[in-house]
């Protein structure tokens, strides 16, 4: 067995790491650095004290913005002793709380911990004791959330980052819900050793998820529109530099010439100036703010600086800008280096073109703001037979079109258009039920498998059996 590509002590929070802050169901990706203020859920603090602790540790934000590891045992203190049988005698007159806003502010200013404030609120509520036990729980939970400033620092992962993006910035990832991303990774048979083609405009989240699943084994060719791939989310994963050695990128605008055999290096945009020039091109999404565009990574290292121009994203992703990257790309700026980088970039581009030209990729993943049909029809050319492909779209209609066009063209089987439906539950003694709000839209997927298309242009490439009638075939599962 080969050694794991992970560093020796993965459990410890170190300076230069990428980490995710978590409070209840809210996440924020940050780079771990000393003496830098972070805003998260209206709280200011520094991460200095977190360094050296283990991932998964929960901290309390104290006055002054320092983090203090929280001991689990303190928790159960806020207990209820007495409860009413029902709420028939409760008349809501807005006067049930004797503590005023000023009182509470005074407590806070004194540095009283949130937990203590909640306890005082309970003691000063005239109706708390008459509330049902359940209503008491609800009250405490609500107040705790308001007054206890507690955060947990966790290691980034596809699970964490896809949940974070869907919850806070779904427009940046084309509303790709995390369970839909999970389906893509599985149906795409993404695994170590594959040669994958990825076309995404999901801020690099889909790319990151694929890289995580491939663990540095195999190769990935990322197709990108405009001046360079966007990898703001990819950088949040904190992958080791080795993961980027077999990550290639290739401009979408050269796909046709590559397919037609007229591809030549001379026409390629190598100047970094072009990146800004084409930035406008990326802003074609429909009901979304412009996506962030960053520099194309000029080296296949982790120098994935997220030049984010939107305050909204800034609030959530405290990714270091240039020069802060944790890998060994500190040296830059000299013309010698620039030249060297251009050479390297050119070399890698040729490699990418060569990889594509072999037409033996092990899978294709598409998740972009573009109409998927032209992407799919072209990029499937680079995939070997008997390999899965997965196309995501926020809307169903474009995938119906893909389905129709692919059936006409042939060379693919087992086409399946689907959507998943995700429901979260509250499981508590005597109070279990599905969560009251749920996501209504996770996006749609079209999956299929490539085969050798022997009969191009002739009409007989359709399958013998009509593919349309589905369902009913799966037998009714037995009840357990």
């Amino acid at each position: 067995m080969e050694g794991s590509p992970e560093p020796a002590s993965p459990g410890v929070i170190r300076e230069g790491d990428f980490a995710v802050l978590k409070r209840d169901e809210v996440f924020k990706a940050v780079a771990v650095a000393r003496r830098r203020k972070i805003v998260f859920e209206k709280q200011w603090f520094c991460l200095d004290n977190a360094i050296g602790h283990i991932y998964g540790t929960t901290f309390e934000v104290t006055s002054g913005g320092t983090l203090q590891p929280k001991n689990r045992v303190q928790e159960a203190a806020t207990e209820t002793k007495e409860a009413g049988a029902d709420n028939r005698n409760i008349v809501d007159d807005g006067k049930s709380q004797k503590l005023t806003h000023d009182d509470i502010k005074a407590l806070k200013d004194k540095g009283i911990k949130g937990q203590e404030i909640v306890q005082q609120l309970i003691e000063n509520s005239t109706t708390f004791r008459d509330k049902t036990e359940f209503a008491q729980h609800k009250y405490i939970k609500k107040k705790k959330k308001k007054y206890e400033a507690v955060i947990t620092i966790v290691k980034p992962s596809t699970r964490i980052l896809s949940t974070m993006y869907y919850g806070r910035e779904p427009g940046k990832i084309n509303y790709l819900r995390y369970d839909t991303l999970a389906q893509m990774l599985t149906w795409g048979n993404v695994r170590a050793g594959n040669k994958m083609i990825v076309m995404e405009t999901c801020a690099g989240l889909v790319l990151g998820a694929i890289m995580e699943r491939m663990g540095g084994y195999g190769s990935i060719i990322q197709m990108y529109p405009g001046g360079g791939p966007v990898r703001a989310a990819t950088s949040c994963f904190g992958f080791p530099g080795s993961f980027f050695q077999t990550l290639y990128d290739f401009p979408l605008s050269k796909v046709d010439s590559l397919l037609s055999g007229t591809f030549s290096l001379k026409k390629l945009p190598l100047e970094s100036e072009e990146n800004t020039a084409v930035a406008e091109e990326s802003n074609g999404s429909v009901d979304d703010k412009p996506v962030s565009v960053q520099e194309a990574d000029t080296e296949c290292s982790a120098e994935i600086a997220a030049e984010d121009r939107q305050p909204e994203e800034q609030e959530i992703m405290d990714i270091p800008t240039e020069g802060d990257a944790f890998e060994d790309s500190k040296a830059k700026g000299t013309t010698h280096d620039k030249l060297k980088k251009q050479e390297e970039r050119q070399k890698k581009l040729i490699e990418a073109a060569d990889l594509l030209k072999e037409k033996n990729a092990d899978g294709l993943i598409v998740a972009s703001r573009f109409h998927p049909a032209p992407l799919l029809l072209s990029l499937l050319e680079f995939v070997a037979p008997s390999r899965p492909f997965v196309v995501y779209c926020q809307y169903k209609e474009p995938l119906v079109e893909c389905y129709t066009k692919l059936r006409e063209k042939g060379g693919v089987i087992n086409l399946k258009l689907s959507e998943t439906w995700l429901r979260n539950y509250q499981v508590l003694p005597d109070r279990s039920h599905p969560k009251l709000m749920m996501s209504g839209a996770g996006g749609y997927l079209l999956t299929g498998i490539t085969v050798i298309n022997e009969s191009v242009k002739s009409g007989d490439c359709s399958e013998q059996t009509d593919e349309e009638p589905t369902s009913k075939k799966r037998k009714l599962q037995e009840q357990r």
Partner: protein
Amino acid sequence: MSFIDYRETIKEGDTAIVFLGHESMFPVKVQHGGKTQTKYGVIRHSTDLIGKRYGSKVTCSKGGWVYILHPTPELWTLNLPHRTQILYSTDISLITMMLELKPGSVVCESGTGSGSLSHAIIRTIAPTGHLYTVEFHQQRAEKAIEEFEEHKVGHLVTVKNQDVCKNGFGITHLADAVFLDIPSPWEAIGHAKSALKREGGRICSFSPCIEQVQRTCLALEEHGFAECNTLEILLRVYNVRTISLPLPDLGKGTGGNARGESDQGSPSDQGASSAGLQQGNAQFKSGVPPREMVGHTGYLTFATKSLF
């Protein structure tokens, strides 16, 4: 106006719905000399409302306009003052059908709550049925009586302020259907059974938590109810939108004119087929699901009072 009868014109004392725009509306009690503020300006009841046809566009003082709608139980559900959690029309629809309510039905309900379901029941059982509704919270019971009178359906409903689990519905062997929306429905099943007609009837219990359902189903079985059936209904509303997706630039213009065969002899004509899509955008109309929707209101458990 009445909640069980359409009228053509707006009259003094009517409860009308002021419709401002998509899902933005509120109820107003029409009164001679009354004034109602909206974001588009003032509505003067005497001149702007009374005598006008329901469905009219009314121009407010600032020049904006609103529509005045005849109340229905469904509009009321969207606009009523919340004194409790309420039942929405999606659940109400299923309850009404699965309890087999129709004109003439005698129905028991507890609790009355904010009266959302009550109005829908009364609408369905009018003109010959009756609703017996029990609410243990005194303020709420009184407010409900008031509203039913205002809405001119008072003769179709009897409101009782008592604890249904202890005191039942106050009628025996009269009801065609019983509806329960209380924290411990299992404690009221016996009362529900004796309220139902001797030859049988239908019962429904609404509970948010599965544990309540489990206990209620056990109690229903113990009391000899049959066809016990628990279900759940969710509404998915689609927004109709015009979607415009950009078409990707695959470099058609740059080098695609002189095309050779590609390397491995596999067909390259699909480049041409995708060229059928013009550079630019693809537009289409779509009914798109909402990002967030109500994921749970409660479980509905139905059963039939059987004969034996």
